[in-house]
C-alpha cells in the first residue's frame, strides 16, 4: 500500500489538471470526475488504514522517498511521504469528509455554470491537503500548506464578481501568508540548526538543540499555525471566508484545512516538548481564541458566520489541548476528527437551509424550518448535540476530555485554562442552541418568495453519513481508548494526569453549564419572538458582532499605516529618489546656463577672462615655485 501512497496526491491532482485543461468540453461530466477522484482517494485511504491496522503498533510508521526535490547547496530536501497513524488519521478525515462533500456539491452547485471549475478547485484542495499531512519534511508540508491556501483563495473567491468575495479571498490568502512567514523563518532556523528540514532530522535532533532555538522554532511554527487555523491574532479572515460556497466552508473552513495548524503543532510535538515557553503560548493562544470565537458566535445573525466563529472556537480547544503536552495532542486530534464530522455536517445543513431559502443566510429570516426540512433538522440536530458535548455523542468524548485536561497542572495555569475551557463550553451551548432554535424552531420569519423544501438526496445522504459520524464516532473511538492507543506511538504519552478538580465534578459542572446555555437560548430564541431586524446592540454585543473589532484593529494597526506607508513610499520614490535624479539633471543644466554668461560674445571680456585664468594659475606657480 505504501508504494501507492503517492496516488493519494496524484489522483486528485490529475483530476484537477484534466478539469482545468479540458475546458468547457468537460462541463457535462466534470463534476463526476471530481467525485470519482475524491472517492478513489477515500478508498485508497481506507485501504491504507486497514493495512496499517494489520501491523504491529510499533511498525506502523513508514516513509517513502519519491525523488530528490530540492538539492541546493547544503539544503537537501526529498519529496518523501510519511505515513503514520497521525497522517493517516488526517488522510481518512480528509478523504472521507471530502468525498461526501464532493457528492453533496454535485447537487448544491447544480445551477452554477462554473461547476466544473468548482470541482477542479476542490480536487486541488484534496491533493494539497493530503500533501500537507503526508509530507515528511517541513518544506514539502509547506507546499501543501500554501496549496490549500491557494485552493481556499480560489474557492472563497469562487463568486468573485462580487467585490466583497474577492476581497475576502485576498484577505484569507494574505493573512495566511503572514502565518507562512513564520513557517519560512522556522525552516530557516531549523536549517541553520539541524542542516535539514525533514521531520526525521529536526524532530529527532530536537534534544540536542538549545531551548532558545527550540522556543524560536516553536513560536514561529505557532505563528504559521495561527494563520492557517484562524487563531488569535490571525483569526480575522475566517469569518469573511464564508463568502465561498457552503460546501467549501464545510470542507475547508470547518473540517480540514483550518485544522492544519493543529496538525503542525502536534506533528512538531518533539519541539514543543522541549520548550515550556512555546507550549504555554500555544495554550494561551488556544484559550484566547476559544473564548473569542464563542463570544463572536453568540452575536452573529449570519448562520455561516456563527458556524465559522464556532470553528474558530473549537480549534481554540484543540490548540489549548495541544499546548498541554502529549496527552493533549491525542485529544486535540481526537476533537479535530469529531469536530470535522459534526462541523462539516452542520455546514452542509446550513447549506441545505440556504438552498431551501434562496441563499438567505440571516437567521432572523429563518425559524420553524423543522417541519419543512426534516432530514436537515435531524442531521443538524445531531451535530448540534455533538458540539454541545451531550453524552454519548461525539463531542462529549473529545471536548469534555480537553476541559478535563485543561484543569491538569500546577499553579495558576490549570485554573485559568480550565475555567476558560469550561466557560467556553457554556457559551458554545448558548450560541449553538441559539443558531439551532432560530433556524429550526420558533415562528417562521420567511419572506414571501421563500418556499423552503428539503434538499435532494445527493445532498441529504452526505449529511446523514456525517450525522452518524457526529453521533457515534466519538463513542466508537473512545471506547477502550482506541484512539489514544492508535496515536500514542506518534505523540508519546504523559502517564496518568490528575486534574485539580475531580473528574466527575468537572463533568457535572460542564453539563450544568451547557444546560444553562441551552436553556437561556431556548428562552430567548424559541419561546420569545425573534425580531427580523437586529435590535440596537449593547456595547458588548456590538463588539461581538464586529468580531471583537478585529478588523478595526487590523485596519488601525496594519492596513491604514500600511496604506499610508505604501502611498508615502510611492510618493517618495517619485519625488525624492527619482526627484533627486531629475534634480541633478536640472541642476547641471542650471549650472550650464549660469556658466554661459561668461560666453558673452565680447572679445575683450574673453581676453580678460583668459588673462584672469592665466594670472591665477601663473601666480600659484610663482608663489609655489
Amino acid at each position: 500500500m505504501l508504494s501507492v501512497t503517492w496516488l493519494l496526491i496524484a489522483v486528485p491532482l490529475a483530476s484537477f489538471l484534466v478539469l482545468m485543461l479540458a475546458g468547457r468540453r468537460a462541463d457535462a461530466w466534470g463534476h463526476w470526475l471530481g467525485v470519482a477522484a475524491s472517492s478513489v482517494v477515500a478508498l485508497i485511504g481506507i485501504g491504507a488504514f486497514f493495512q496499517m491496522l494489520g501491523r504491529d503498533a510499533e511498525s506502523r510508521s513508514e516513509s517513502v522517498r519519491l525523488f530528490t526535490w530540492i538539492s541546493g547547496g547544503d539544503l537537501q530536501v526529498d519529496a518523501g511521504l510519511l505515513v503514520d497513524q497521525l497522517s493517516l488519521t488526517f488522510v481518512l478525515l480528509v478523504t472521507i469528509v471530502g468525498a461526501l462533500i464532493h457528492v453533496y456539491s454535485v447537487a448544491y452547485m447544480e445551477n452554477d455554470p462554473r461547476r466544473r471549475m468548482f470541482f477542479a478547485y476542490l480536487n486541488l484542495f484534496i491533493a494539497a491537503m493530503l500533501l500537507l499531512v503526508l509530507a515528511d519534511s517541513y518544506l514539502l508540508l509547506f507546499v501543501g500548506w500554501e496549496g490549500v491556501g491557494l485552493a481556499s483563495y480560489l474557492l472563497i473567491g469562487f463568486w468573485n464578481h462580487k467585490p466583497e468575495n474577492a476581497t475576502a479571498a485576498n484577505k484569507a490568502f494574505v493573512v495566511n501568508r503572514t502565518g507562512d512567514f513564520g513557517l519560512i523563518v522556522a525552516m530557516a532556523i531549523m536549517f541553520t540548526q539541524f542542516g535539514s528540514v525533514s521531520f526525521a532530522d529536526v524532530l529527532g535532533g530536537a534534544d540536542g538543540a538549545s531551548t532558545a532555538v527550540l522556543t524560536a522554532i516553536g513560536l514561529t511554527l505557532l505563528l504559521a499555525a495561527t494563520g492557517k487555523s484562524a487563531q488569535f491574532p490571525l483569526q480575522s479572515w475566517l469569518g469573511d471566508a464564508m463568502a465561498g460556497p457552503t460546501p467549501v466552508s464545510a470542507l475547508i473552513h470547518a473540517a480540514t484545512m483550518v485544522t492544519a495548524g493543529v496538525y503542525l503543532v502536534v506533528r512538531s510535538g518533539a519541539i514543543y516538548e522541549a520548550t515550556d515557553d512555546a507550549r504555554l503560548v500555544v495554550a494561551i493562544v488556544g484559550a484566547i481564541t476559544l473564548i473569542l470565537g464563542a463570544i463572536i458566535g453568540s452575536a452573529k445573525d449570519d448562520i455561516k458566520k456563527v458556524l465559522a466563529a464556532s470553528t474558530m472556537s473549537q480549534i481554540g480547544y484543540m490548540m489549548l489541548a495541544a499546548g498541554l503536552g502529549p496527552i493533549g495532542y491525542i485529544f486535540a486530534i481526537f476533537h479535530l476528527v469529531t469536530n470535522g464530522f459534526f462541523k462539516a455536517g452542520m455546514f452542509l445543513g446550513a447549506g441545505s437551509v440556504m438552498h431551501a431559502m434562496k441563499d438567505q443566510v440571516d437567521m432572523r429570516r429563518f425559524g420553524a424550518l423543522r417541519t419543512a426540512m426534516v432530514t436537515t433538522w435531524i442531521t443538524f440536530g445531531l451535530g448540534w448535540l455533538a458540539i454541545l458535548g451531550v453524552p454519548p455523542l461525539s463531542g462529549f468524548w473529545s471536548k469534555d476530555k480537553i476541559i478535563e485536561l485543561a484543569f491538569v497542572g500546577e499553579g495558576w495555569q490549570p485554573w485559568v485554562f480550565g475555567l476558560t475551557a469550561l466557560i467556553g463550553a457554556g457559551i458554545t451551548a448558548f450560541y449553538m442552541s441559539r443558531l439551532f432554535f432560530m433556524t429550526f424552531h420558533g415562528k417562521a420569519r420567511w419572506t414571501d418568495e421563500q418556499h423552503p423544501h428539503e434538499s435532494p438526496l445527493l445532498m441529504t445522504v452526505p449529511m446523514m453519513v456525517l450525522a452518524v459520524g457526529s453521533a457515534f464516532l466519538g463513542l466508537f473511538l473512545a471506547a477502550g481508548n482506541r484512539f489514544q492507543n492508535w496515536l500514542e506511538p506518534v505523540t508519546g504519552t504523559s502517564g496518568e494526569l490528575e486534574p485539580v478538580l475531580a473528574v466527575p465534578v468537572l463533568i457535572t459542572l460542564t453539563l450544568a453549564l451547557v444546560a444553562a446555555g441551552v436553556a437561556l437560548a431556548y428562552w430567548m430564541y424559541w419561546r420569545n419572538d425573534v425580531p427580523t431586524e437586529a435590535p440596537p446592540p449593547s456595547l458588548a454585543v456590538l463588539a461581538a458582532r464586529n468580531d471583537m473589532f478585529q478588523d478595526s484593529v487590523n485596519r488601525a494597526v496594519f492596513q491604514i499605516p500600511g496604506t499610508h506607508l505604501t502611498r508615502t513610499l510611492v510618493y517618495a520614490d517619485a519625488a525624492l529618489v527619482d526627484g533627486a535624479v531629475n534634480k541633478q539633471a536640472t541642476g547641471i543644466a542650471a549650472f550650464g546656463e549660469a556658466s554661459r554668461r561668461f560666453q558673452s560674445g565680447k572679445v575683450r571680456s574673453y581676453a580678460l577672462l583668459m588673462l584672469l585664468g592665466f594670472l591665477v594659475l601663473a601666480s600659484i606657480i610663482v608663489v609655489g615655485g
Partner: protein
Amino acid sequence: MTYNVPEIAWAPLVPIIVVLVAGAVGVLLEAFMRNVALRRVVQLQLSVATLVLALFAIVWQWVAIGGDGVVVLRSMIYLDRQALAWQFLLVVFAIGGVLLFADRNREGEDAFTPLASVAPGSPDETVARAKGLAVTEAFPLAMLATGGMMLFASVNDLLFLFVALELFSLPLYILVALSRRRRLLSQEASLKYFLLGAFSSAIFLFGAALVYGAAETTGMRELLGLYVPERQTLLLLGLFMVVVGLLFKIGAVPFHFWVPDAYQGAPSPVTAFMAAATKAAAVAALARLSYLVLFRFAWELDWVIWTVAIASVIFGTVLAIVQTDVKRMLAYSSVAHAGFILVGFAGFSPLALSALPFYLLTYGVATLGAFAVITQVRELTPDGAAGAEATRLGQWAGLGKRHPVLAGLMSLFLLSFAGIPLTAGFVGKFVVFRAAVEQGAWPLVVVAVLASAAAAFFYLRLVVLMYFTDAPDDASPRVEVRPTGIGRGVAIAAGVIVLVLGVLPAGALNLADEAGVLLSPPVVTGG
C-alpha cells in the same frame, strides 16, 4: 667669424616641404589663373595629390628612420616616429578637410563666399555671386596651414615652434572668415579668433623668452641640461606660458573662449579641418614638450594639468548641455574633449605618447565625419534651393526617419564622441584613461568619466531628435538633407574608420605603440 653651413638632412623634411611647396604653388595659381572653374579643379587636384604624396612620403620616412629618429637642421627639428605619426594624422585630416572644401551642392555652391573682399550684403557681393566667382585661395591656405602644423608637430625649439604656430594660425584666421552664408558672423568669428590668438601667441612668445632667460636656450632637448637651478621659478613660469599658448590651441578652459564662436562662424568644412587638425597639432607639440621637459617638473606642473583638465571636462560638458546649436554644441564638446586629452597628460605616463595620437585620430575622424554630415543638412529657401546649414537642434528632428543612413552615421559619430564601446571613441578614451590611471590619477579619471556620462546626454539628445521625434510639419524654413557626393563620401569613410577602430583597433594601436617613442634627448650640460 666663420659661418658654418649647417648640414641638413633633407629627406625627413620631404613631407613638410611637399605640402608647403604645394601651398606656394597654389598661391601663384591664384595670381595667374583667371578661369575660376578651372582654377578650382586644379587647386583641388593639386592639394589632394600633394597630400597623398605627403602620406606616401611619411610612410617612406617611417620605414626609413626606423625606431630611432633623425636630427634635422641642427637641433631645430627632430624627426622621429612620434612626429611622423602626428604628421600622418594631420595630412589625413587635411585630406578630409580639403575634400569638404571642394564639396558643392546641386546649385554648384560651395561653403565659401564668392569674394571675400567685399562687404557682406553689398551690391558687389551680388555681382560676385552672379559672376560665379569662388575663393579658391582656401586650398593653398589649407596647404600652408597643414604644412605649419606638420612642422609644429616636429619642432624641438620653442622659437621655431612659435614660427610654426603663426604659420598655421594665420591661414586659419582667414579661412574662418570665408563663409558663404552668415558672413558677418563668420567675419566676427575670424576677428575674435585672430585677436585672442594673437594674445595667446604673445603669451607664448613671452614664455619662450623667459625660458631663454632661465636656461639660455630655447631647445627643448637642451633645456633640462642647461637650466640654472636658481632660476627654476623663471623657467617654470616661462614653460607655463608656453603651455598656455598650446592650451589655447587645444581649446582648454579657461583658454577656450574662441572655440564656440569660431566653430560656429567658420564654414563647416573649415570647422571640420580646424577642429580635427589644430587640436592634433597642439597636442603633438604639448606631448613633445611634456616628455622632453615638463615631466621633470611633474610635481610643480601636474596640478595645472589636473585643474585645466577638470575645468575643461566640466565646463565643456555643462555648456554643451545648454546649447541649442549643433555646431556650438560640438564646439563645447571639443572643449570637453580637450579635458579628456589633458587627462592623458596627468602624471606624464609613457603610455600617453602612444595613446594621444590614437585618441586624436579617433576624435579627428569623428569630427570630420560629423561636420561632413552637418554640411548636408540645409534650410531650404522658399524656391526649394538649399540655403544655409540648419544648425539649430530642433531642425534636426525626424531626420532619422527620412535619411536613415545619414542620421545613422551622425549617431555613430556622436556615440564615438560619447565613448560608447565598439566605436573608436571608446578605445581612444580607454587608452588615454589607462595612461592616467597608470600614474595613479584615477580621481581625475573618475571626474572625467562622470562628466562623460553627463556628456552622453547632449550627444544623445541629437540622436533622440533625429530618431525619436517627428519633424514639425510647419517648420519654416523647411529643413532637408541635400546629400552631396563628397560630403557623403567623407562621412561614410569616417564612419567606416570609426567602426573599424572601435571593433578591431589592434593594428592601429600597434602603430601607435611604435609611435610612442621620442628620439632620446642628447644630454647637453651647461658649461
